[in-house]
């Protein structure tokens, strides 16, 4: 069966460098300016929401007993999950020597970094007094108390801070050879100076590359269990409690699958417009999009399987609260439409990717990827809000309603994410240049034999 190539045409290394670096040199375009404007408005909304929350306390959110966790944790889990596909693409696919990952890995890693930043805001804000966030770390304080490591909260802090730091060094390590290229190709002295500092004086010496290759592989090897551990730990926030619909051993793999599912969808959402805008069809080919769509389909089935199993386990447990949660509260209780939206977006709609035609259509790919993101957000909502709304004590049941501050902060994180992402597209070669040249070299060798 003939497959689409991962690389089209035979540009020389110099042409390729110029093509991939040009995104950082050329002047602002109108579309970029509009994008920045939207992103800045979103960012302002985020920081106004945060300021208001910190000034008044988290009473300005819709959270109230019994729903003590809501938008903050939904958004936290959703954003962390989006980050996971970035690590999956750059680390797991590297270990499996998947050549198609090369052109999109830096892109996906940047998505990871910026998504973790959004995610990390929420638990800190949810503290109510975010200026005491450092209490989570075990430092010898005058209070004479220590953090409680049997709680999932310090696990989260360890997981998220490690995930961010490791993702950052992985991303930066991959970036160094390209920063050196930017230093050497910079059109002005100021740019040469700035990129020169970030390139750290890298020369491409074989004695450096010898260690560099191993460190890059090592970071990939470390990131692979890390990405699995992070969402497993996040899922433990729920699984180690007793709330109906939460207390379940399936949660760690279920959350990891959902995370990778939403992350692949987010990569598609971002890569399709960028590829068209910057005319990168020769390095990000239909093969990449096709493979991403297949990954969405596979992870959609893992998530669907988990849904089925959750229902089965609720019924099989014979526990009346679990049965009520799954067979009444979720499909027919308040906010039931979000449950049905989750089912349609996550389990039904991705099935169009069985069709090659759908996987080849940019419009279908993009639209489905958006719906998957919506569906995964709905899943977090269903798990968190539905469980808390219908707890063990019917007299305490209530219905959760988010406030405008919740929406300002949630939509604001999208703006902030977009802002960081546009800055990344603007200043950094987002297709890894050295790696693409290396891939081209390898491919030409394979043809030669």
């Amino acid at each position, binding site marked *: 069966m003939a497959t689409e190539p991962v690389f089209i045409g035979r540009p020389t290394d110099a042409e390729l460098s110029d093509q991939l670096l040009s995104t950082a040199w050329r002047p602002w375009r109108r579309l970029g300016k509009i994008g920045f404007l939207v992103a800045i408005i979103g960012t302002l909304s985020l920081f106004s929401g945060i300021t208001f929350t910190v000034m008044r306390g988290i009473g300005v959110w819709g959270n109230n007993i019994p729903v003590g966790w809501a938008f903050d944790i939904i958004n936290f889990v959703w954003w962390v999950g989006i980050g996971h596909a970035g690590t999956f693409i750059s680390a797991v696919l590297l270990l499996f020597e998947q050549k198609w990952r090369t052109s999109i890995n830096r892109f996906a890693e940047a998505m990871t970094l910026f998504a973790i930043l959004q995610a990390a805001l929420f638990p800190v804000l949810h503290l109510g007094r975010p200026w005491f966030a450092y209490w989570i770390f075990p430092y010898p304080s005058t209070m004479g108390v220590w953090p409680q490591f049997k709680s999932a909260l*310090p696990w989260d802090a360890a997981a998220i801070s490690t995930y961010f730091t490791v993702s950052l060094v992985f991303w930066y390590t991959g970036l160094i050879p390209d920063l050196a290229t930017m230093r*050497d190709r910079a059109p002005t002295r100021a740019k040469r100076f700035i990129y*020169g500092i970030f390139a750290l004086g890298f020369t491409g*010496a*074989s004695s450096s590359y010898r*260690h560099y290759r191993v*460190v890059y592989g090592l970071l990939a090897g470390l990131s692979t269990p890390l990405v699995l551990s992070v969402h497993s730990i996040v899922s433990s926030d729920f699984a180690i409690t007793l709330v109906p619909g939460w207390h379940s051993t399936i949660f760690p793999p279920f959350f990891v699958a959902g995370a990778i599912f939403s992350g692949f969808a987010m990569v598609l959402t971002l890569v399709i417009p960028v590829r068209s805008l910057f005319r990168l069809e020769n390095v990000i080919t239909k093969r990449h999009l096709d493979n991403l769509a297949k990954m969405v389909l596979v992870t959609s089935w893992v998530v669907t399987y988990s849904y089925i199993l959750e229902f089965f386990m609720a019924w099989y447990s014979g526990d009346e609260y679990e049965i009520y949660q799954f067979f009444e509260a979720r499909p027919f209780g308040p906010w039931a439409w979000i449950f049905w939206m989750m089912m349609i977006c996550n389990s039904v709609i991705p099935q169009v990717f069985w069709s090659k035609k759908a996987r080849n259509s940019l419009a279908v790919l993009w639209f489905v990827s958006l719906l998957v993101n919506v569906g995964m957000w709905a899943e977090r909502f269903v798990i968190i809000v539905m469980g808390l709304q219908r707890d063990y004590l019917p007299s305490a049941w209530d219905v959760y309603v988010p406030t405008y501050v919740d929406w300002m902060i949630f939509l604001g994180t999208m703006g902030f994410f977009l802002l960081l992402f546009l800055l990344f597209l603007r200043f950094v070669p987002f297709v890894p240049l050295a790696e693409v040249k290396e891939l081209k070299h390898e491919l030409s060798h394979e043809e030669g034999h």
Partner: protein
Amino acid sequence: MRRTQQSGIVGAFDTPEAIIRAAHELRKSGYRRLEGYTPYPLLDLERAIGRGRSRIGFVVFPFAIAAAAGAYLVQWWTNGVDYPLNAGGRPAHAPPAFVPATFEMAVLFSALSACVILAIWSGLPALWQPIFEVPGFEQASVDKFFLAISDRDPAFDREATARKLTELGASRVEPLGVHPATDAELDERLERREGEES
């Protein structure tokens, strides 16, 4: 630990195959202090200049173990000994609950130590290096392949080595380790390149 070449002679090659072949030939003729500068990693070149597989993994491993042990000890001491708190009847020293943070710290410190060791072993950051003064070296990160031979190499001879590099297909041979270029010279170079490109 600076591993880069300080002075000697540099040849520029146009293809990865040419530089790998040249490195092999030079090794065969007794040259030992060779260094390649390439736009992307070339495993064959590393082998040709006589560099084996990096041992960085072995150096990182103790950091991983130390971080895991340290993280576990902190949790054991704080929760098990110094400030035991009965949470849901679980034991004060609860090994399963201490696994997540222990694992995360092992990963964190492995990654950080790997990067720090990589920087130290590569002699980075070093914003200026003698090799940058070689005319045309900025192409080494784009599409040219540079092979440097140190003047401390037992087989080094300025004329003979230069001739040898040309014979092996170097499109240009330059001395390495001359005094640094001034800002004015750098600007001039930049302007010349802009002129060529436009």
